[in-house]
């Protein structure tokens, strides 16, 4: 978020916060929150209202997205997240943002493909720190329960300067933001559903003027013993899914924010997740009883302090432990990686219209992985970055960022980013209470970036085949588009956005049998090109106590290998496997008095399942829905009943080859709210 003394924000804050008269105030203006959705507040009525007043003067973080001018951002608001409280990021990103999730089954491995790139090409950050599994360089979205965080946003497109390694196809940003509203509030929820789904969650938060505390926990289990049909020579035969249970999934995430004096803020956040899953094999693979335990422990401590000159220091230290223990019929593969990370940054105002952030970070990995041998492996990485935001005029916003990472095998490619947003047209009666990027009107936006992905520990140390000399993948791309926002008059807000993108990934890593003894070994071999178009339209309407929103989105993604070597026999020029050419989604939410109704439809065109572009998963359209009712009860409590359904059209489809997806399924949630 912009530093306060940027002109327009300064205006607003001056008006709102004049009483507090904090000289070096930094404000989280929520500039970035408006890519697709409305600001976060935890209050449904904020959807069409003005940004609510900050209850206290705060040392708010200058958000990273502030420096991502010209990039698209997709953000889920808290009202939507609340519907998915028992679920995971895998459930919500596909259904609500129209993103393509490669999913092996309910609760099973789920990875994202942003702009046609692979699972390793999306950086996942939690409170500003990369939480990709260092071994695999990717995240299983089914292991990221929604309850653990209060904010979830996705920035498609290359952006290593901001998000570091892996932000090739884009980044997923998870955050817990302190809630400074005074008093205690909380809720407890119980869930039950088809195929042995049971769950529950608990959230409590409280704040005093100097301390904000939140605690969230969730539990889920599912038998996933759903029926599916297999075509056999004698006809269709009905089977019941075996070895696919989610035996348990816990998430526990306490965090606190403590204001230390007028200028300092200390934050501590913990996120513990623990899942025990049976690993569903393809239905034609017999006799497997594979099982996997995934545990992650994440701790971060941060301190932020504003200086009298209007700048802000922030330091963060984090400790993560990621455990993956896999076993199948006595074959065991265990791994444990401990990561320590530290970040330091200084954000300074440059005059009235610019701000500059300089920072550095270091990561240390200690891995004990069966596949690497008995000896532990350690690796260090470091990076320095400079981020600049400059708004020469209220209608022109610019950013320029740079990151240089140092990896064990040498320097990563230098990764700059530039971005621009230019308001081509602004209605005369534009609201003066909004920051420039949220004003109604027509805006041209563009950005260009170079990016990289550091080799994963598996790529470097797996034996046989691990390649310590592997270079970082590099890439670059640009996007440009238009955003049209129709004002906030008469309770209607309409925002349309269209973006065209083009990007290349060089030195794309591919495992080929080129290692000693013909072992599969990762090599920097390919160039992959991805290009396409993304369009979305968001409508929000408010009339009295009726609140409605609808979002329709479409994406066209063409991703092909453009260059390779002779040993890499995958053909060039064919659409990559698991990249559907077309995706479309429509979601709508309606609230009236205590009622809630919501539906989400996603269409995915066929996706090839091999590099030859011969086998494919057929196209499928899926519908899900939620009905809810909240009844106020005495003593500031209320009760919410939610009935949800997935695959309402009962489509028979495979989300991955030989992994039949569940038929229509229901769940019921009962939530007791206090406040």
């Amino acid at each position, binding site marked *: 978020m912009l530093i306060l003394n940027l002109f327009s924000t300064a205006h607003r804050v001056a008006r709102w916060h004049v009483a507090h008269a904090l000289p070096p105030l930094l404000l989280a203006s929520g500039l970035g929150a408006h890519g697709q959705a409305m600001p976060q507040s935890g209050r449904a009525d904020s959807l069409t209202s003005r940004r609510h007043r900050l209850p206290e003067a705060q040392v708010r973080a200058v958000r990273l997205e502030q420096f991502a001018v010209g990039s698209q951002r997709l953000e889920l608001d808290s009202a939507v997240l609340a519907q998915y409280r028992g679920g995971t990021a895998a459930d919500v990103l596909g259904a609500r943002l129209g993103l393509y999730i490669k999913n092996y089954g309910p609760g099973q491995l789920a990875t994202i493909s942003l702009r046609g790139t692979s699972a390793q090409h999306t950086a996942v950050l939690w409170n500003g720190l990369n939480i990709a599994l260092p071994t695999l360089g990717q995240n299983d979205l089914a292991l990221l329960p929604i309850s653990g965080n209060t904010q979830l946003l996705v920035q498609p497109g290359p952006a290593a300067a901001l998000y570091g390694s892996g932000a090739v196809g884009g980044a997923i940003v998870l955050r817990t933001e302190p809630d400074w509203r005074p008093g205690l509030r909380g809720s407890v929820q119980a869930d039950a559903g088809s195929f042995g789904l049971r769950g529950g969650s608990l959230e409590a938060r409280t704040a005093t003027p100097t301390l904000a505390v939140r605690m969230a926990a969730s539990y889920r289990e599912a038998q996933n013993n759903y029926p599916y049909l*297999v*075509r*056999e*020579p*004698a006809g269709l035969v009905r089977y019941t899914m075996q070895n696919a249970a989610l035996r348990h999934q816990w998430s526990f995430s306490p965090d606190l924010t403590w204001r230390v004096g007028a200028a300092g803020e200390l934050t501590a956040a913990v996120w513990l997740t623990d899942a025990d899953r049976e690993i569903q*094999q*393809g*239905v*034609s*693979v*017999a*006799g497997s009883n594979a099982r996997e335990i995934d545990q992650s422990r994440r701790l971060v401590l941060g301190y932020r302090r504003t200086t009298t000159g209007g700048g802000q220091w922030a330091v963060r230290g984090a400790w993560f432990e990621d455990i993956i223990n896999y076993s*199948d019929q*006595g*074959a065991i593969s265990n791994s444990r990686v401990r990561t320590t990370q530290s970040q330091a940054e200084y954000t300074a105002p440059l005059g009235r219209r610019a701000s500059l952030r300089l920072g550095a970070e270091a990561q240390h990995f200690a891995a004990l992985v069966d596949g*690497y*041998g*008995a*000896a532990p492996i350690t690796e260090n990485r470091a990076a320095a970055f400079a981020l600049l935001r400059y708004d020469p005029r209220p209608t022109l916003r610019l950013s320029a960022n740079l990151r240089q990472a140092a990896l064990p095998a040498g320097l990563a490619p230098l990764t700059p980013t530039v971005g621009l947003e230019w308001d081509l047209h602004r209605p005369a009666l534009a609201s003066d209470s909004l920051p420039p990027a949220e004003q109604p009107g027509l805006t041209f936006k563009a950005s260009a970036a170079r990016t990289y992905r550091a080799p994963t520990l598996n790529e470097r*140390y797996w*034996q*046989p085949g*691990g390649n*310590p000399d592997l270079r970082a993948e590099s890439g670059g791309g640009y996007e440009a588009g238009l955003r*049209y926002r*129709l004002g906030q008059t008469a309770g209607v807000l*309409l925002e*349309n956005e269209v973006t065209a993108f083009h990007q290349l990934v060089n030195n794309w890593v591919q495992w*080929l*049998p080129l290692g*000693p*003894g*013909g072992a599969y070994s990762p090599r920097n071999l390919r160039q992959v090109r991805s290009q396409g178009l993304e*369009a*979305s*339209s968001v*409508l929000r309407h408010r009339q009295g106590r009726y609140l409605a929103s609808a979002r*329709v989105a*479409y994406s066209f993604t063409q991703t092909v290998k453009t260059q390779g070597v002779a040993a890499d*026999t*995958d*053909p060039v020029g064919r659409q990559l*496997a698991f990249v559907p050419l*077309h*995706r*479309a989604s429509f979601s709508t939410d309606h609230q009236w008095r205590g009622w809630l109704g919501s539906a989400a439809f996603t*269409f995915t*065109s*066929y996706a090839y*399942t*091999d*590099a*030859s572009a011969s*086998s*494919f998963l057929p*196209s*499928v*359209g899926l519908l899900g829905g939620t009905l809810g009712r909240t009844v106020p009860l005495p003593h500031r409590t209320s009760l919410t009943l939610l009935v949800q359904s997935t695959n309402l059209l009962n489509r028979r489809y495979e989300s991955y*080859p*030989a992994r039949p997806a569940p038929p229509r399924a229901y769940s019921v949630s009962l939530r007791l709210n206090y406040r």
Partner: protein
Amino acid sequence: MKKPLLALLAGATLLAGCDPSTPTPDSPTNAGVYVLSEGQFGAGDGAVSAFDRNTKSLVIDAFGAANSGSKLGDVIQDMGVVGTRGYICVNASNKVEVVSLPDFKSVATIKNIRQPRYFTFTSATRGYVTAWRGPYTNYAPGKVLVLDLTNNTVIDSITVGRCPEQLTVLNNKLYVPNSYDNTVSVIDAATNKVTSTVTVGDGPRNVVADQAGNLWALCTGFTVYNPAPPYDVISSTQGALVRFAPGATAGQLSLPFATGNPNDLRISPDKTLLYYSYNGAEYQLSTTAAALPPTPFIRRSFNGFAIDPRDNSIYGAVSTGYTSNGYFLHYPAGGGKVIDSVTVKVGPNGFAFN
């Protein structure tokens, strides 16, 4: 602004009709050549392709075509032909699929054959399948399962060494190479008992019988890697081509390979020429040779190799990794210029003829 987007959405939904077309192929009629493709692991898309060498027609997935789109299963490992029946070992699906030939209609599925590897037979009513036991790196002694081919059931099970592979029959005796050991188990097919064990070399994978009544085992050798950087090879035993006589308990002739791992021993239909793949090429030698040939027969790396007994023409399978479709090459008898190059499914690894 919203209407065009809704139109776009509607248009996108119409694209549902734009899935790639998959015409229903006819069942194979008179194929003669069957090409086995493992498929992508877990995807259940292993296939046997039926190739007619006269018309050059190909049915990519013969089983699916003949059985209304049914999938054959995961990891097609081997196929044996007994008269007008085909016996297909589907490794990861733990089954042997029995089809009628040449139409490829399903006859029976012999289920619960864990980790089936290779099929052979001693008569029109008696078949044998090798099967592994135990998980990766913790293998237990494997089995030879005895099949009654009249009703397609397992009637007996014989314990052999670890990871039994491609067996052969000579004079009503089965010779079973135990690829995780250094032995060949000899089974008397009359009693279904192991009568002796022949020590050959490390990692025997295939056994063939030659014209003179000798047996040849191709041993791939064992390679052990350093578990720490730089992950070099810390121990390696040589591969060897080992000849032994039916009654022997040890090899009579061992032709060692200097480096690397030889693979996929085959013998010509007249049983006078041996073939194997080694260091990315295919080699040929006479069953009377006293040394390994210095130069390759075909300079190509095959993932499967076979000689059609009807015309001695040669088939080589080329696997291009496990994400893209492979192909096979068809050479005239004695080698030479490629006659046919035909794309099949992912991971072609072998052939069968009838």
